[in-house]
């Protein structure tokens, strides 16, 4: 396990160094994303200044949601950036070269890229959590659980969407769309959804498990909420692993869309 983590760290480190190579471009992308996120924050500040709360969610709750989302997306992009274009890699047959090497195909796919903009997300996410989300030091362990579980669900969902590429060439843009839709749901108060939309947010586009359930866990900690969050992370990880395994079998047999 330690060896695996060490190997991953090496690969991800190389990808990070590569993204950092063009310093001006790196700075521009980070600054751009930071500006982008701060404007969204400003819009929410304005919204809550005008409307105070929605469905029981106040500004601090929204800040917690935004902070979690940005930190999760930022961490994924910086350390597991290969997730974004995984569908394209599969369709281009880029797995062929990787399959000839021993060990850890998924981890190599994830570690091969690091997104510069992700650091902008990460920086803003942490800043928002610290300054606006009203989380105390005592909440830190639960916050880490929320971040880890949320990250696992987000990454697993993205991998599952990318796996569609093993079966359909049209998944090239659609996989990325699905990840964006999940992110979309993760950027608005959880209290506004009901009915079929709520079902969608807690299943196919699991924004509910990426951030909404973790927010509720942090605001009203209980054994039940912790179990829900952790179980969701394990379930989605298993789903992603299973889909990838099935898709890879198909790829190896030559039947895939690549």
């Amino acid at each position, binding site marked *: 396990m330690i060896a695996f983590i060490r190997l991953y760290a090496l690969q991800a480190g190389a990808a990070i160094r590569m993204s950092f190579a063009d310093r001006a*471009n790196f700075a*521009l*992308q980070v*600054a*751009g994303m930071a*500006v*982008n996120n701060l*404007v969204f924050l*400003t*819009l929410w500040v*304005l*919204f809550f200044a*005008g*409307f*105070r*709360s*929605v*469905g029981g969610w106040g500004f601090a709750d929204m800040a917690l949601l935004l902070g979690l989302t940005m930190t999760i997306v930022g961490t994924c992009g910086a350390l597991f950036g290969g997730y974004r274009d995984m569908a394209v890699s599969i369709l281009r047959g880029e797995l062929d070269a990787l399959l000839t090497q021993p060990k850890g195909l998924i981890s190599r796919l994830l570690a091969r890229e690091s997104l510069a903009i992700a650091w902008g997300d990460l920086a803003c996410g942490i800043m928002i959590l610290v300054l606006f989300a009203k989380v105390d030091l005592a909440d830190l362990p639960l916050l880490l659980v929320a971040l880890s579980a949320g990250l696992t669900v987000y990454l697993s969902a993205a991998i599952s969407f990318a796996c569609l590429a093993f079966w359909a060439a*049209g998944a*090239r*843009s*659609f996989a990325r*769309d699905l990840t*964006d*839709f999940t992110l*979309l*749901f993760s950027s*608005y*108060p959880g*209290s*506004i*959804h*009901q009915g079929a*939309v709520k079902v969608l947010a807690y299943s196919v586009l699991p924004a509910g498990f990426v951030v909404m359930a973790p927010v509720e866990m942090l605001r009203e900690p209980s054994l039940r909420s912790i179990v829900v969050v952790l179980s969701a992370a394990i379930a989605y990880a298993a789903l992603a692993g299973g889909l990838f395994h099935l898709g890879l079998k198909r790829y190896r047999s030559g039947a895939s869309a690549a």
Partner: protein
Amino acid sequence: MTSIHLPSRPAEGARAAGAMLSAFRLGAGQTLAGWQVLAGRCIFYVIILVVLAALWDKVAAERLPGTLAGQLPPGGLALYIGVTEWITLALPAVHLRMEDDIRSGGLEPHLLRPKSYLAQTFSQSLGAAAVRLAALGATALALLAASGREPPPLEAFPYIVVLGGLGVVVGILLYALAGLMALWARRSLPFQLVIQKLMFLLGGLYAPVTLYPPVLEAVAKASPFAAHLYWPSAQAIAPSWDGFLMGLAWQGLWILVLALACAWLWRRGLAKVLREGGV
């Protein structure tokens, strides 16, 4: 072999228009060819409308005292958002296309032709936008019918279509300004991001600018960003002939100003490219 031909001004104008129309059709054809991306965009539109409509409906339903909830229109903001997102999602990434052409030397084939790169690119983007507007518009109508929500009055539709189309023109010109900055900065991203955020804020992407404090409202309404988003979308919640004319006037003004700004930037940048052989 052709001989030197010097067409008269009106003939030249007609030919330039013909080339622009052809570029418009090309842009439309390219967008239709990438129908999967278009479909993804329509689905994104549905989802964002569902989410934002849920948000605003909840706010309207709760009607918390001492908040701006009392100023919301009776039907809520779902229709307003429907139009702002319709326009926003129809905007092609003309700045990225220009940046790519500028950085990769892709300007060269265009400079070797007798028609203006700016006019051709603009027309092509307009063609792409037209297809997106149609696809997203059909999606909006389908969603409206499926939701059972009260639609805007019939008189509003022509206002929305005309102002919406011109709003997209304003948006393309704004993004073209960002794209042209690549002639100096080699990147359009920082300029495009600033412009986009101003569109969200001063254009009133998520809420009408009438909800802002008076000074901010006045600034927003006079800005090109309101010409892009607010004026067309306001017709969805409070359609009126006066509002239509006002919107038309602001859009006319900003289209002229932004077109001149683009032409000026292009001239300066082109001189640089011809002198230095690139950027």
